[in-house]
């Protein structure tokens, strides 16, 4: 169990019900002290009372130094984190969180176009106040399947963004024309996308030629099930069997092999280990191809060979 002193202690200061599925949680220091700073696009780990650890983008204004705001969409069929936040967390409850990390920094010194799919709007909410205050050029495309699922549409419309905001409701036939968005980018403009995997795949296919000017942020879980295999730990010689449906991380824990882990969803890379032999199946969402040649994340990744050797 994580020690309190090794995390940022917050209390739930306010909860806003945005719509039937989405709540905003405003977290503050118990005595109102300033919180560690963050930049637009950053996220934090939330340590839930049950022991679950989940990542959420910070959706508040980075200039507001005493509050972390997260937007949580209740996922009825999810892994339980959002249900716990929605059902068990109340104003005044203590919540331990990590220092903010930013794997999706949103530039404020170049023109930016942002594409949000559904609850993928959350990292962009932290960028808008700064972009508006500094009068930076930007466009925000907010996509949802129906108006009901565009939880933040009303809030965004009240911000008076004019043509800088475009809301695309696919049920209403206003599906985003990705090719056109990419074609209209200025030569130095950066494109950001956060949304479901299907959307990110489409963006990467359409805008891959942007290279370093394309930024994508995944959410959700990369998961998979493999047939049984075994993991050989090179340093100890121990062999750990991994059963069908079991993750490599679960198998290692069951064998009393301690591997630090945080998100357990293939994003944070806390659990990454060096692999030495075998054929890994990489399912994490955030490593480069080059890193995959050396590292594997046992939380979600598996093995195509009957044995995988780790440098443990």
């Amino acid at each position, binding site marked *: 169990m994580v020690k309190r002193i090794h995390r940022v202690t917050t209390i739930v200061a306010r909860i806003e019900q945005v719509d039937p599925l989405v709540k905003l949680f405003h977290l503050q220091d118990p005595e109102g002290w300033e919180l560690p*700073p963050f930049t637009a696009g950053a996220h934090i780990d939330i340590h839930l009372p049950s022991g679950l650890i989940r990542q959420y983008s910070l959706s508040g204004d980075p200039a507001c130094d005493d509050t972390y705001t997260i937007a949580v969409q209740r996922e009825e069929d999810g892994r339980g984190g959002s249900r716990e936040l929605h059902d068990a967390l109340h104003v005044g409850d203590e919540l331990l969180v990590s220092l903010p990390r930013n794997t999706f920094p949103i530039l404020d010194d170049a023109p930016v176009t942002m594409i949000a799919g559904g609850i993928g709007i959350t990292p962009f909410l932290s960028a808008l106040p700064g972009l508006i205050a500094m009068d930076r050029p930007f466009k925000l495309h907010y996509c949802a399947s129906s108006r009901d699922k565009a939880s933040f549409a009303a809030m965004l419309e009240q911000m008076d963004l004019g043509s800088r905001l475009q809301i695309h409701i696919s049920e209403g036939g206003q599906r985003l024309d990705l090719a056109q968005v990419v074609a209209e980018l200025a030569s130095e403009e950066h494109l950001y996308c956060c949304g479901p995997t299907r959307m990110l795949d489409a963006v990467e296919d359409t805008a891959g030629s942007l290279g370093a000017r394309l930024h994508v942020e995944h959410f959700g879980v990369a998961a998979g099930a493999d047939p049984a295999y075994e993991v050989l730990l090179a340093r100890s010689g121990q062999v750990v069997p991994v059963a069908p449906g079991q993750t490599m991380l679960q198998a290692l824990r069951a064998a009393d092999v301690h591997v630090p882990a945080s998100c357990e969803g293939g994003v944070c890379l806390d659990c990454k280990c060096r692999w030495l032999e075998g054929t890994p199946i990489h399912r994490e969402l955030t490593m480069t191809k080059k890193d995959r040649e050396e590292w594997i994340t046992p939380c979600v990744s598996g093995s195509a060979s009957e044995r995988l050797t780790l440098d443990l």
Partner: protein
Amino acid sequence: MTFTGKIEGLHITPRSFLPMRNVETLELIEGLGIEGDRHSINEAFHSDRPEEGRQITFFEAETLEALKRDHDIDLRPEQHRRNVTTRGVPLNHLVGRRFRVGACIVEATRLTTPCRHIEQITGLEIYEVLLHRAGLNAKIVKGGQIHLGDIIEPE
């Protein structure tokens, strides 16, 4: 050893990771720490490994200037995460010695080592350049109030 330095900044925070605030006065409690600071109330990152030398910590203003001069790093006094910013005090020479800080007396126990999470908090890559100049740990031998501008000198 002779030197006459002064207090250039005073800084405090009640819990691990939180930003430090600049203050004009600190209350030093003999054998315990600084009133309201994380180390005196077991709310610091290292409080599970208690150490009397964490009662009060010092950092040289000259190091901040060297970081700017040699590495173009802007580290503000409240960002180095020590309690006292000094000027004109050779901190690295004071391990094992007692010295006066205003009306108080402290005894230095060891050099401070930098902590990786200072990089996470500040967003600056400063861990390696702070090695061997990350300040001084001390215990409080005689408590009392210390103020900005107070003289620091050998006991």
